[in-house]
């Protein structure tokens, strides 16, 4: 059932993973200015897989970037697992991302000259882990996503579904509390999309974690615990179950 927003600007409850209040973001200036986010209120809870849906250009990716700490916003407050991003200097936001965020991109973004194992170990290396430790943890992670034996393959030697699973392993290997996915299945066929989402749901269930997925792939809506529907730079509705959203509003 759809609940109307905005909710009251209270401090985040204990089980809240991401807490966004009144965020504005405008790209460009003057004539060319595009207001991508218009006073967005948004919450994601620990232990859930939350989907952000809505028509193309409504600001989903922009909101995701703000939550991930990769994009500066103009006004408002963003709280992610207790870190107040609106108060942190850039260097600390970088450190925050390094420790707390796992990224999964639409176009996988694997480094083509590095093999699967090396790609997966990058977040650990950036976090200062030694090569040996990083590789052994990455190996386990690849096994978990069903890619045991493919450690030395480069992205080009892998199928699209396998590449995205490498990307998932990379997003999860440093055990981030928040995993951010932008259109993770749009380049995948139905079966691979399903496998990816099953993995993501398992991650979201782990205690103290949260997975946010931006998508307009209706084949995967059923994996959502809740859905946030955006329209024209605002959160229009929040659905407590995927069943009330059918994507027919646009």
């Amino acid at each position: 059932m759809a609940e109307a927003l905005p909710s009251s600007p209270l401090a985040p409850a204990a089980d809240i993973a991401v807490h966004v209040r009144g965020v504005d973001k405008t790209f460009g200036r003057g004539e060319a200015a595009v207001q991508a986010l218009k006073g967005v209120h948004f919450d994601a809870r620990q232990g859930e897989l939350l989907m952000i849906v809505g028509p193309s250009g409504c600001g989903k990716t922009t909101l995701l970037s703000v939550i991930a700490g990769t994009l500066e916003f103009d006004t408002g407050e963003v709280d992610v697992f207790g870190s107040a991003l609106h108060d942190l200097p850039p260097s600390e936001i970088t450190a925050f991302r390094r420790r707390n965020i796992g990224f999964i991109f639409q176009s996988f973004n694997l480094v083509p000259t590095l093999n699967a194992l090396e790609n997966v170990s990058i977040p650990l290396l950036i976090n200062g882990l030694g090569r040996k430790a990083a590789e052994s943890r990455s190996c386990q992670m690849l096994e978990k996503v069903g890619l045991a034996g493919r450690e030395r393959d480069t992205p080009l030697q892998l199928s699209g579904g396998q590449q995205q699973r490498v990307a998932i392993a990379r997003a999860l290997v440093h055990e981030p509390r928040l995993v951010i996915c932008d259109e993770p299945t749009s380049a995948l066929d139905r079966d691979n999309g399903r496998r990816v989402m099953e993995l993501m749901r398992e991650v979201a269930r782990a205690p103290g974690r949260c997975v946010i997925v931006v998508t307009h792939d209706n084949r995967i809506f059923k994996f959502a615990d809740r859905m946030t529907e955006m329209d024209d730079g605002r959160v229009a509705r929040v659905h407590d179950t995927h069943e009330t959203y059918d994507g027919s509003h646009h």
Partner: protein
Amino acid sequence: MYRLALKMLFADRGKYVMLLSGLVFATLLMTQQAGVFVGILEWTKGNLKNMRAPIWVVDPKVEQVNEVKALRDTDVTRVRSVPGVAWAVPMYWGILQARLIDGTFKPVQLVGLDNATMVGRPSRMVAGRIEDLRLPNAVVIDELAVERLSRGRPHPIGIGDIFEMNDKEARIVGVCRTEKSFFGYPYIFATYDQALQFAPKVRKMLSYILVAPKEGRTIEEVAAHIRSTTGLMAYSEEHFGISTVRWFFRNTGIPTSFGMTIALGFIVGVAVAGQTFYAFILENLRHFGALKAMGASDGLLTRLVLLQAFAVGAIGYGIGLGVTVLIGSLFLRKGMPPFSLPWFIPVATLGAILFICAIAAAFGIRKIRQLEPAIVFRG
């Protein structure tokens, strides 16, 4: 992460090879041309290396050792009478034509050594004895002369053989080794009196006066003394060498033309390596953006890019220098063209290459620092 950064670059075969070739080529051009240039400058000092003396006295207008304005015979006595002079002896040096057995002529450099002391004699005899120069019509020739004057003979020319200079017979009594000189002609040594017999007669025949200071006197002090009392020019060996090199800088286009080639090497290096490296950064911008999104700090990314640039710079420099040394040793074995690689050439080239890499890296780093990590979410 540093290892992965290097792998990112090395595995990008096309760019890596291009980058490396640019740097190898720049290194090669700079060191090799500088080596030939220094080699030429060394050749200009040939006379000073082949005829050794602490002090060289010449006409006041003479600025370099390959140029002769003859002195009067009495000048030797005048120099001898300068206080602090231990000895002063005459030397003849001139270019003559040697007539080969097949009737052709080859230019040679004839050196006349003081009959009694033979000051300025060649330091390394390969065959025969220098003292035999006192025999009638005797000459000692260098190994280059053996090569050049043997034409038309069944065997290489050697001790006991005869050739002609100025229609006068010269009999070889020894073979010596000499350093290459600017003119590139062989050296023929004779006594001073004998040399004057070979040389065409002119009013003044004395080329240099070679001098040594008395014990306890410094070379500079005695040279200064000679200058002030005789009005002649007196150079220490080292000073004459410097003056010779300086003369070539001022009066020939050699330094400019080499300077331009060396500058060209540098520019090519900057252009090729800089552009290719920048293209590599641009092509991988997405991945640098992803690293940035994943929490790599600007500091880390800067270090990664610097490592990539300097690693390829070091490898390119190493290969370039290796090839230069290889080519250089080939030159030296053939004796042509001149080549010399004193330590400051590789060091300066290394500096230039590192500078090129730093510039290339700087542009890439600037681009990466400006990068919004959010770009990784854009298709």
